[in-house]
């Protein structure tokens, strides 16, 4: 498949935004049980939610560039019963709205106690909105992953590892961003987030590594024999029926050399996992919460995840390519 910048940006940006909000609400939830000190509402919760909203908003904006007729995008909410893409189009704005409400409640300070936990933690409007946003964030990871995983003949994607990796990689970049952000906004939480970020980065490496190993072993189900229905071991395409390109020759081929794919694979394994994990471990070892170190870790990891997403598309081999093997 041809990697498209708009889709790469959409999936990486909203993943980081979802992960960042999950980190913010993790701190909120732990504070309910007095496991961490509650962070400053304005500097941490509101500003952090604003960053998450900016990331998801930028992703949403990028997704419009994928469409041929963006002015009709609102129609995409229609088929939520059958289409994962339609579900994503509904859940993404719903998640953004819940995050907005969470930020608004924190900003306005309208936090009447609705109920009390046994330990004394106060359940207020912010907790409810945050809980809704958390559930929607997980739902959004599932929707985004299932858009790709539900297509049976794109076998590189048709695996439970696909939604799992969207979840793990989004959380990795989101918690790394939360660590870098909290170094300025809530230094007490930096070590916590760095630990989470390191764990998610390593889990992401395991999940993505498993997907890479799985995809290496895939044998194509469709062959030229089943594509044209001629039972002969040697079939060669002499003409695809036209002399220059078409939608089919552009949309489904990445058009790069196999060497480029290998190079991108090792680059993203280093940039999305190895280097950020080393920087996060270094930040954990250093006594001083190292803001710039974590900011660098996020920047490198985000670039690495963009490369990962490029590779994710490029490695998927569509069976229609069997029909487009010879220009003439």
């Amino acid at each position: 498949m041809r990697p498209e910048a708009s889709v790469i940006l959409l999936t990486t940006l909203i993943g980081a935004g979802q992960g960042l909000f999950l980190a913010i609400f993790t701190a909120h939830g732990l504070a309910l049980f007095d496991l961490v000190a509650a962070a400053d509402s304005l500097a941490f919760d509101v500003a952090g939610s604003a960053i998450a909203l900016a990331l998801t908003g930028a992703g949403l904006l990028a997704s419009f560039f994928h469409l041929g007729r963006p002015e009709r995008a609102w129609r995409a909410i229609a088929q939520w019963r059958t289409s994962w893409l339609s579900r994503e189009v509904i859940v993404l704005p719903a998640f953004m709205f819940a995050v907005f409400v969470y930020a608004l409640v924190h900003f306005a300070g309208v936090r009447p106690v609705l109920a009390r936990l046994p330990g004394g933690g106060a359940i207020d409007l912010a907790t409810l909105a945050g809980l809704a946003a958390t559930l929607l964030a997980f739902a959004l990871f599932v929707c985004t992953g299932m858009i790709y995983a539900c297509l049976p003949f794109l076998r590189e994607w048709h695996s439970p590892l696909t939604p799992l990796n969207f979840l793990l990689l989004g959380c990795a970049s989101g918690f790394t961003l939360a660590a870098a952000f909290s170094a300025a906004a809530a230094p007490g939480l930096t070590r916590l987030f760095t630990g989470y970020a390191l764990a998610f980065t390593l889990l992401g490496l395991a999940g993505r590594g498993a997907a890479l190993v799985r995809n290496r072993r895939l044998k194509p189900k469709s062959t030229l024999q089943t594509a044209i229905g001629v039972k002969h071991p040697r079939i060669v395409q002499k003409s695809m029926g036209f002399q220059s390109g078409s939608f089919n020759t552009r949309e489904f081929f990445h058009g790069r050399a196999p060497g480029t794919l290998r190079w991108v694979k090792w680059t993203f394994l280093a940039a999305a996992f190895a280097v950020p994990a080393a920087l996060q471990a270094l930040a954990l070892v250093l006594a001083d919460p190292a803001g710039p170190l974590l900011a660098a870790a996020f920047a490198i990891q985000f670039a690495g995840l963009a490369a990962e997403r490029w590779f994710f598309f490029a490695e998927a081999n569509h069976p229609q390519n069997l029909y487009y093997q010879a220009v003439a």
Partner: protein
Amino acid sequence: MTQLALVIDLNVCVGCHACVTSCKQWNTSGAAGPLADVNPYDADPGGAFFNRVQTFEVGEFPDTQTVHFPKSCLHCEDPPCVPVCPTGASYKRPDDGIVLVDYDKCIGCKYCSWACPYGVREIDPGRKVMTKCTLCVDRIHDATKPESERKPACVLACPTSARLFGDIHDPESEVSKAIRDNAGYALMPEWGTHPSNHYLPRRRTAMRVHPDELERADNPLKVDGLLPRPSKADPSLDDVTSW
């Protein structure tokens, strides 16, 4: 229930592309708007087509077969492109089984083309919406046309009658009989899409000579040439003339 479909006889197709050009002509002239081209008269021409004829070589020289392979939307009975559409623009008509795109609802997200293993959906470069074979839906149900012309443009254009059109759910239809009698098959059966369009395989054209054709059964003595003249006394055929 009706399921309209094409049956394409690979044994007869000569790869002339008449179905391609007639399809383009009909579908670029219809009410749905032009099927756009990009640089049609320039160095790198392109554009949307509903039907393409491809050519494959089977076997190794000197024992080769050239297979011309027309490919358009197969109007699957279980089309994977329909449920993935987020807007409902892609749909399968319940009354005749044709898979169609509502060009006014399509947002051009290309997801349906990812979900089609056959690569038969193409984005129209002008309208920026997904397009595909309609089985000439604006023609086959047109009551103002004579019955013989209510067929897809490609079927009418085919000079060798390699394309048949009809209802594959009607066991007595021409297409059902052609599939039954000539081992018609579907493409990529491994994905369970149940394509409605079928292909008839290449059949080797061989002359069958039986031994009794080489050795005449009415000449057991293997005597060739003129038979011996009968005697004048032998009876003749009509008792009037002699041999």
